[in-house]
């Protein structure tokens, strides 16, 4: 697990994203944002250097039974 974001860091990120959020709103967002970042760490464990992104399910790559 990486170090979790603090309220102050999240507030700064919000400002840099052009978002005008109240302190209460930033506080409510914090647990979800940290949960999202932990999810990314779990997803990283799945991938190796050779894995390319799947931007969408591609019908042309379908293997029919």
């Amino acid at each position, binding site marked *: 697990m990486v170090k979790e974001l603090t309220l102050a860091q999240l507030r700064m990120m919000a400002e840099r994203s052009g978002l005008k*959020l109240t302190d209460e709103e930033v506080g409510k967002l914090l647990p979800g944002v940290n949960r*999202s970042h932990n999810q*990314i760490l779990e997803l990283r464990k799945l991938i190796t250097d050779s894995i*390319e*992104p799947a931007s969408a*399910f591609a019908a042309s790559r379908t293997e*029919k039974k």
Partner: protein
Amino acid sequence: MALTELTHLSITEAASGLRRKEFSPSELARACLERIESIDHKLHSFITVTADLALEQARKAEQELRGGTDKGPLHGIPIALKDLYATKGIRTTCHSAVLQDWVPDHDATTVTKLCEAGTVLLGKLGMHEFAFGGPSVDAPFPAVRNPWNMAHIPGGSSSGSGAALAAGLCLGCLGSDTGGSIRTPSSHCGVVGMKPTYGRVSRFGVVSLSWSLDHAGPMARTVEDCAILLQAIAGYDPKDPASANVPVPDLRSELKNKIKGLRVGVPRVNWFNENKGTDPETEAIFDTALKTLESLGAVVVEIDGRPFSIARKANQTILTAEAYAYHEKRFQEAPEKFGSSVRRRMLEGAFLSAADYITALRARTVLNEQIRANFSAVDIFVTPSAPRPPDAFETMDPNEQNLRPSFTNPFNLTGLPAISLPCGFTKDNLPVGLQIAASPFEESTVLRVAYAYERASEWHTRRPKL
């Protein structure tokens, strides 16, 4: 026939009745409109009722049928649309103050196709705001209630679609599904809903939540009705960049084929017990449904649920990032226009980096391969549609969903076709759904299994007391 009986007919039954001249399209439309008028003030399933248009379309259908022009099983059938399908000249709100006054100048491709099939449009249905978050308690329109128990949520995001069908306010609907938004309300309202393969049904004119995960699809009260609706809306559309140029088979004709010998994969291990796990009553009902499938000749095979479990994490990351990207300018300019539920969920996307998003897309590649590799050992996947029955509004916890398995998310991530149909009721008389998924473009297999199960059960015949 009594008016309430008309509104509870299946599309198949209504189509027969219209051709036998037992009632007319106008009588059918009027019956639905009267029922909407009499009970929807309690359910709030409709945002906009298009009564004049419906009666005009019904009169036209009546004249056409009388004159020998028969457009098929949807001709003269009253339907309704989740309020994110663009409808030319009809307000399309996405249940949000943001689009409260938006009147599109075009129809979604699916709307055009349903119109060509001769359907009668009753109106536009409530939903979770922009198809995300939870019930919209601070949106300009009230949250939709569950007809089985109005203290409970109907599931979302196609909440109005599920509720209107269960309450007998219309005969068919369209919903949309990015993480389970057709299948969850179908499960919670005791109706049938199908998310087709990604690319099978055009998304053109459907307000986006997440471009790479959004699916448009039908909801109805029977499996055959879902097949009829899907047949009408499926097919290649050059207006949708993700549309698949794959022939659509005759879905209805394949319904009655047997399922003997079909291998049913159940990804129970490492998934059903994730975190707080699956509600025991729901899992018991699901196990009984499995026995029914076995009695029809299917062979149940337990498979590893781990990749299905992880799929939710990739699905949520992609969904949140794409949803925020779609609405970014609106959030910067007027965030107060969004309701609290959707605002909190979508804003999480503002704090994901480009690398985070790409990581989720790379995980999607891996999980697609891992999940689809199972098709060498099984023909379909079967799970409960939802990990627990619908919550009561009062006790609903928006964070709870992350603590239970999401049975629907993996099939958005992989684009595989999946259906939910009723498979039982809890002791509190709340519906439970069975989810069936198959390999890409095998909607006919999904529908065949669902139809076989439906014929062997009676859950779809129950109605809520209203």
